[in-house]
């Protein structure tokens, strides 16, 4: 059984699991549970995974296997804002790679990495379906279309400013 400290820390998660758990197929709700946990805690830490293992009785090793298979699941802390550049075909054809390059230069990180101040995580996504406005970049839920490499600086500055205000 889980220790009492985790019990409190993950109360909400335990509750979610009991809502979606299907005793006939104990593993079938795993991906929903992981999505929920990641949304709640930002990333899937060792503690979170072990807690899920305890409650669902799916072995932790099995859960790790699933977590590492799917690219949306993160096992490391993520930056406050997630910057993604679309690398779908339409965006690629219209110069998405140049946007990514400009961001890499500016933030001094590669896709998958987080800036030292934990403000931004850079990633590549695939077609978000806004191909008409290609090339596309997004910061969290905000979508920027027809982006020119020169605009990148301004967009980042805008988010930095926002972060400083808080």
């Amino acid at each position, binding site marked *: 059984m889980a220790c009492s400290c985790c019990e409190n820390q993950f109360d909400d998660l335990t509750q979610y699991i009991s809502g979606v758990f299907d005793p006939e197929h104990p593993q079938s709700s795993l991906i929903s549970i992981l*999505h929920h946990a990641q949304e709640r805690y930002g990333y899937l830490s060792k503690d979170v995974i072990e807690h899920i293992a305890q409650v669902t009785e799916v072995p932790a090793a099995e859960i790790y296997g699933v977590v590492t*298979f799917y690219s949306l699941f993160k096992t490391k802390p993520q930056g406050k804002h997630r910057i993604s550049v679309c690398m779908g075909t339409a965006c690629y054809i219209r110069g998405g790679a140049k946007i990514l390059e400009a961001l890499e230069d500016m933030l001094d990180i590669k896709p998958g990495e987080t800036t030292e101040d934990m403000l931004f995580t850079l990633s590549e996504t695939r*077609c978000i379906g806004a*191909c008409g*406005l290609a090339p596309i970049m997004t910061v969290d839920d905000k979508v920027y279309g027809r982006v020119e490499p020169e605009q990148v600086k301004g967009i980042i500055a805008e988010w930095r400013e926002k972060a400083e205000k808080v």
Partner: protein
Amino acid sequence: MKRKIIVCSGSACIDPGGKRLEPELRRILGDKNAFDLVEIEEAVCYGHCGSCPMIVVEPEGTFYGELNSEKLARIIDEHIIGGQPVEALLATQPMDTSRIRMLGSADFFGKQLRITLRNCGIIDPESFDDYLQMRGYEALAKVLEQMTPEQVISEVEKSGMRGRGGGGYPTGLKWRQSTGHDEEKSFVICNADEGDPGAFMDRSAIEGDPFCILEGMTIGGYAIGATQGYVYVRAEYPLAIKRLRYAIDEARKRGLLGKSIFGTNFNFDIDIRLGAGAFVCGEETALIASIEGRRGMPRPRPPYPAQSGLWGYPTLINNVETWANVPAIFLNGADWFAGIGTEKSKGTKVFALAGKIKNTGLVEVPMGTTLREIIYDIGGGIKNDKKFKAVQTGGPSGGCIPEQFLDTPVDYESLMKAGSIMGSGGMIVMDEDTCMVDVAKFFLTFTQDESCGKCTPCREGTKRLLEILTRITEGKGVPEDLQKLEHLGKTVKRASLCGLGQSAPNPILSTLQNFREEYEAHINEKRCPAGVCSALLNYYVDPDKCVGCTLCAKVCPVKCISGEPKKTHVIDTSICIKCGECKKKCPVKAIYRK
């Protein structure tokens, strides 16, 4: 007269700054005290994303595109308050649907026929009653009241419908193969994983009309005797997920999902399962593994899911678009459906038209329409009047079709003959500025990254193919590389376990076949004819622009720029390491790459 403003609520309908139109519209209406003059309604993506963001003003049906706050304010002043449509702001390529009448030319819609997307942009996707008004659930009622499961399957067979997920497998036959097993349970699945990067048909179909997919699945469930269905949808599509949830909740409330549907003894329910960012999960056996909560890896077939699928039970899996067509077949009859399209490919197909094309967006055309009609008559031709080079269909599993095949009709067999495939509906247009070697490299990077690693030919083969392509784009290719690509590509195709590996070499093989001279230019002349592959480009100073400020010479790490102050500078390309620093520094943008 009270006018109505219909705002597109598709997830792509944003201005280049990422703003949605609706809050802005409400603000301006408030500022101008014009709220009483209009009613605002949301409709989903009209599939004309090139004019995003847009609105339609009723009752005139005036269609305004590429809007921003200033333009909106003008429309409210002149049209809503003044009663005069603003000619200057009309979208350039208006469209025509039963509800939206247009001014000016209607080319974008002229050659189209909407079956799959029949309700998209017409009903409010968050109003179940809207769907009912468009004859929603009439097909299910007819099926449950008048037809046996056997008759339902025969009707689908008679329609000639083939799967829209890429393979084109006859839908009726698949339904038949999913029945007649002595299992106590069976399942129905809708594949909404839409993995092709550059395609968004399924997303728009769900966002625009989630109801018809549920109705289609319920008919499928009745036909094969299933009691539970799942929609497997990418987590990257939050709006589609939200609308599906709404549609499922409403259907349950109204007794159209759950126990005793329409008062019969047929029980059927549908749940949503989310993906988590793995392209291979679009493959049916991997998708099933993912619904079971495991790593999404394909397994050898047979047994096919129709015999042994989810938790080992017979499972009927079809694509979003396939399901969306099902109610239409029962509303209008299999003969009607079979009358549309070509001999072997019936009905219509939705394509997501994008790339270097004037009108981007969704198009739905009868099978047999030619590529030329889609690209030129509907898509308006190439952007900036550049020269057409190729059209890519089938995404990472497909190929690039050159100019001489533009009159190919779109149907499963003809596209295959032209060296590509129908695929799920991505259609990317490329112009003279696109490098075909680079395109092949782009797709291989994708498939190599997404290969699940279960079988060696795909896991190792895609890596080696990508290495060779990378070498060629870096100017380090040797003539033997072309044979190696061909040989290895064919081996990977033959020896891989699932469709991902079996089709991964297609982008290479098709470009090698149709654009071999581009590969040769990279290898033999160390030149990229389209000017894309940066390792093969050199930096030059434009003597007409250079003002002799010396900044470039100062920043160059290898000191290969010479020139006196106030005189034209010159780059010694034999020493230049192509770092690009000089280009960044030049205040008058005199340095270019070629």
